[in-house]
């Protein structure tokens, strides 16, 4: 057994223990903390699997933003949780354990007995890289070869935000989401919220820009931008905008809107829906991505702040 394998086993064991802890621990708050740790450390596995694009996404969206989303919910539910002591019966537990281990065993054996010549689309993707003149194969797949998926995923984000907003109470409709945080000028949090976002915004744009040729892209960059925005909100330096603002709604549809327009343009002038002319492919993709990173940052940030809770004046 080589030292690399030992390391991989250690890594898998560490993340697995975190996963077990997340499921088994009594308090919900602790479980969310465990989930954040789990989500961040799973990124290490993705790096080991040589999928850095996914590692970035997993660390930023699943571990970082997703974890904080769960954490906020857990903090709010904390008092309600005390009454929730109803545990499932032993029969349920045993049969659930049985079902879960069967599922896990089936999946594990499926992985162990995969066919010897693995199917792969990597050569095809590499062979068509000329069509976009971007060097990152994952960006090529996301933005060109399977652009339809990416566009529809933007629509899913939009639907999610509509769904979240529509849960607002009647008197808060069109108002500001989340609680108002008061800025205390002597608080070190305010200091950090002034110092970190400029650096974070540069880092987010860097991750986005490098996505053309190296791992990175609009999702990962957008998640970093969203976290920096939320940091200033949490420090009380800015407030969340009322959701009825026209500019906000424009930002939210800019990404999928431009994507759709370019796609229809491909149908009109070119061969098919979302077909880019090779000469214009790179500027078109970059344009869509610039609109997308704004949309993604705004949508992720607003999804984290939740439904509107205060009317505009408050």
């Amino acid at each position, binding site marked *: 057994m080589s030292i690399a394998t030992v390391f991989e086993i250690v890594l898998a064991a560490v993340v697995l223990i975190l996963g077990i802890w997340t499921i088994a621990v009594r308090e919900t708050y602790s479980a969310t903390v465990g989930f954040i740790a789990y989500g961040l450390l799973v990124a290490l596995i993705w790096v080991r699997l040589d999928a850095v694009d996914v590692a970035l996404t997993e660390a930023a969206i699943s571990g970082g933003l997703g974890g904080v989303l769960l954490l906020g919910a857990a903090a709010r539910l904390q008092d309600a949780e005390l009454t929730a002591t109803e545990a499932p019966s032993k029969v349920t537990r045993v049969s659930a354990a049985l079902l879960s281990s069967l599922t896990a065993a089936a999946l594990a054996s499926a992985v162990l007995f995969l066919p010897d010549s693995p199917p792969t689309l990597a050569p095809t993707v590499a062979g068509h890289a000329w069509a976009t003149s971007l060097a990152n194969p994952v960006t090529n797949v996301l933005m060109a070869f399977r652009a339809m998926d990416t566009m529809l995923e933007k629509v899913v984000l939009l639907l999610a935000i509509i769904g979240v907003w529509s849960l607002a109470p009647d008197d808060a409709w069109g108002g500001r989401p989340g609680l108002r945080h008061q800025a205390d000028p002597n608080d*070190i*949090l305010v*200091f*950090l919220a002034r*110092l*970190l976002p400029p*650096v974070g915004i540069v880092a987010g744009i860097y991750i986005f820009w490098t996505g053309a040729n190296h791992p990175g892209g609009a999702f990962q960059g957008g998640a970093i931008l969203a976290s920096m925005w939320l940091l200033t909100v949490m420090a009380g330096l800015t407030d969340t905008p009322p959701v009825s603002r026209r500019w906000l709604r424009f930002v939210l549809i800019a990404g999928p809107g431009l994507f759709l327009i370019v796609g229809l343009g491909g149908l009109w002038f070119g061969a098919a829906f979302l077909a880019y002319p090779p000469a214009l492919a790179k500027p078109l993709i970059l344009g869509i991505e610039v609109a997308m990173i704004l949309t993604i940052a705004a949508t992720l940030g607003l999804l984290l702040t939740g439904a509107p809770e205060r009317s505009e004046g408050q």
Partner: protein
Amino acid sequence: MSLVRDIMTIAAVSAGALFFLAGTVGLLRFPDTLTRLHALTKADNLGLGLVVLGLLLQAGNLRDGLKLIGIWLLALLAGATVSQLIARTARQGEAAK
């Protein structure tokens, strides 16, 4: 030349690992929140700095090197401010009890 660099890398990374060990021992052994916080932020940030130093010697070009230093500086800034925030919250929690 590359052998000298490798030896220096090994030395720096080993020293860094030692500081991570020290930080973890502190976490396991110290009794209350404030001392554990002390063990965590100081030892781990120094450990990260030594690891970065070791990897700087292996960095291919200036850009990669600057990125490594930038990440360490970010971690330092975060460690300094976040540990202060946590410490203050811990004290408020004690006062509330």
